[in-house]
């Protein structure tokens, strides 16, 4: 590695708006402009590359502790860096559940040691994700893990009173509840989107109304008590309409959509290939169009991956026996490029907003993520001109349950810089020891 703590990025297209050089020193952006000079710096030729602030994923499953056969904090951090992320929020459905300060501090420590991304643990809303009693919300918030987002993701906080109390209580420390909106009674043994395809295939339906009714209830609760609310992985056109209404009323709700819900549809279940089994399920083409339009008009605030690694065996089986979920960190930016940028729905500065600035804000991260002088040097350099058929070779996660194999995706992450050091260069992950050392050095 270079002895210098300087990186000079030359000729980058900064968020699609202007071409400039970016000088990074000691983890911070120290200059942005034309023809910068830094004789000691490592030079990165970024001609033709889009520079974006390091991506922030508000919804990642790192699986550790408890499910290390699927993913660890280290392997998931590597997958994140490969996808251009510099921060991920790690969901709480581990074993033991992240419902106390001990577990969230452990996850944060593992993230710090790995050094590829900033790992911000999400705390469970209820003890054991059981939906019965509130977890140690305050202790997690004031722990070294600084938990600011709470979620029972995988399960819905379906008890109205408990949801109200949780949203009220976390105001104490500026936290937010991220709701997995799924009425459990309307989705007993649900396997895929309820509709013509599920009927034909004989798979139990997961109706749109099971998501929409919870979102409607929760935005009304948020309004009633004056709390913030975040909705995870919104998936239906009807949900978009409810959010549009809520935002027009001034309700403090934010919303995420996953890359897979922006691209894939429920008819992919036709061959009973469980790589396409996910919760919430893939919906119809009309839903996909509504979700894309909602990102474009700002109704949907952010794109978050819901990266959900699972071992091969739990996908290579009968559909109704298979696990829900798909990996998505590595493919997120190419999918956003393919579905939203190439289609003219988003500019690159919009991408910076929905994949970095807005998720950071929802998660109460410091910094502006603006690629301006004085900002922490979290940067991704993306080549939008490439195109390739996605395959499991593109997945660096410990689990390979990508649904995108065989689909042509546009663009690739070329370099990722976190806190001023490279985690990915020329499309390849930097060595674990090098990254851990750099991460330890700069923290």
């Amino acid at each position, binding site marked *: 590695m270079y002895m210098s703590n300087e990186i000079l990025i030359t000729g980058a297209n900064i968020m699609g708006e202007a071409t400039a050089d970016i000088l990074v020193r000691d983890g911070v952006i120290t200059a942005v402009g034309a023809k910068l000079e830094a004789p000691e710096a490592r030079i990165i030729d970024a001609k033709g590359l889009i520079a974006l602030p390091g991506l922030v994923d508000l919804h990642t499953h790192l699986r550790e502790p408890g499910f290390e056969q699927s993913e660890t904090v280290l392997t998931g951090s590597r997958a994140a860096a490969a996808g251009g992320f510099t921060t991920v929020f790690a969901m709480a459905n581990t074993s033991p559940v992240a419902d106390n300060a001990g577990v969230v501090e452990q996850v944060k420590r593992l993230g710090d040691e790995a050094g590829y991304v900033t790992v911000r643990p999400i705390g469970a809303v209820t003890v054991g994700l059981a939906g019965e009693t509130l977890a140690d919300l305050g202790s997690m918030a004031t722990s070294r893990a600084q938990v600011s987002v709470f979620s029972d993701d995988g399960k819905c906080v379906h008890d109205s009173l408990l949801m109200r109390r949780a949203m009220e209580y976390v105001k104490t420390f500026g936290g937010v509840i991220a709701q997995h909106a799924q009425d459990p009674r309307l989705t007993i043994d649900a396997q895929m989107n309820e509709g013509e395809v599920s009927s034909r295939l004989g798979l139990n339906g997961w109706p749109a109304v099971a998501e929409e009714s919870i979102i409607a209830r929760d935005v009304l609760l948020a309004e009633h008590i004056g709390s913030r609310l975040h909705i995870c992985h919104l998936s239906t056109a009807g949900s978009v309409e409810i959010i549009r209404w809520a935002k027009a009323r001034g309700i403090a709700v934010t919303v995420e959509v996953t890359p897979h819900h922006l691209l894939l549809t429920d008819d992919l279940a036709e061959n009973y290939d469980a790589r396409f089994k996910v919760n919430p399920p893939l919906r119809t083409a009309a839903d996909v169009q509504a979700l894309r339009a909602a990102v474009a008009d700002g109704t949907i605030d952010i794109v978050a991956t819901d990266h959900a690694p699972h071992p091969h065996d739990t996908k290579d*089986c*009968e559909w109704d026996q298979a696990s829900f979920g798909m990996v998505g960190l590595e493919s997120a930016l190419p999918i956003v490029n393919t579905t939203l940028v190439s289609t003219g729905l988003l500019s690159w500065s919009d991408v910076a907003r929905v994949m970095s600035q807005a998720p950071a804000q929802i998660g109460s991260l410091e910094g502006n993520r603006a690629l301006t002088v004085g900002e922490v040097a979290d940067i991704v350099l993306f080549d939008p001109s490439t195109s390739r058929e996605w395959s499991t070779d593109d997945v660096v996660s410990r689990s390979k349950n990508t649904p995108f194999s065989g689909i042509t995706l546009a663009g690739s992450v070329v370099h990722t810089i976190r806190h001023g050091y490279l985690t990915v260069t020329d499309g390849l992950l930097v060595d674990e020891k090098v990254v851990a050392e750099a991460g330890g050095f700069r923290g």
Partner: protein
Amino acid sequence: MKHLLSTRDLDRATAISILDVALDMAALGTRDVKKLPALRGKTIVNLFYEDSTRTRISFEAAEKRLSADVINFSAKGSSVSKGESLKDTAQTLDAMGIDAVVVRHSSSGAPHLLAHSGWLDVPIVNAGDGTHEHPTQALLDAFTLRESMFDDDARGKGLDGLNIVIVGDILHSRVARSNIWLLATLGANVTVVAPPTLTPPGIETWPVRLSHSLDDALEAAPDAVMMLRIQSERMKAAFFPNAREYAKFWGLTAARYRKLGESTIIMHPGPMNRGLEISGEAADSPQSVILKQVTNGVFVRMAVLFTVLTGAKGDVHE
């Protein structure tokens, strides 16, 4: 036809060819020696992950009449109960060098996986998967309809213009699905009668007419009425209030049977809940072809196994 997984992907010519082969099989059934050496030396595994005495015995009878060697594999008496995956079971069977698998499974799509996952490379016959399909049941129903309508002139015919009413739990019924696709392919007009709770979402895109009144549907004097079995657990899940009410609105009661014209035949895939979806009087009436369905089931399954294992397109000459 390598596999028989569903009736939805069965074209008209293939369907009619299977029914015609079944006619040949039926003709053999009248001889003293009912056995045919067609599948001698072939080993067929009946892989049953779900209890089913009737269907398994019907397949077994069909296999034995074709002189195949039969291995019955039921989930309860095997390593499945110890948690062996479908993939491992399939690969184990493949390693044993078997020639075909007849599979019944509670998971929709399990036969499709066996046929397409590369775990084993032999013909797969779906004997009922979850709430997806039960194609041999639909074929035996079509055979029975053809026989009832055309008697000795059935060969080569479809079911064009016949009016068929299917009644009951369409949502959970693999028999209904397979029948709807096959009857449409063979040219019949299908009316489906079910409470809205047991009607599949998106049924408006299916080739059927939907009615919520059994009386209206029977008023039109259909050629056949097909009653589906209703399972008691549906009641607990609030699909309908209680058995009495189900029988009153959706059952072929004695009163409804008596109003039915003599030209309407009565069908049921069995096993019946007498007094619930069908009255004893209707089930045992001269119009009932329920036992004929059972008889024909063996011929149709012989025809299916013969077709997938020999690739034959219609001839059954010894």
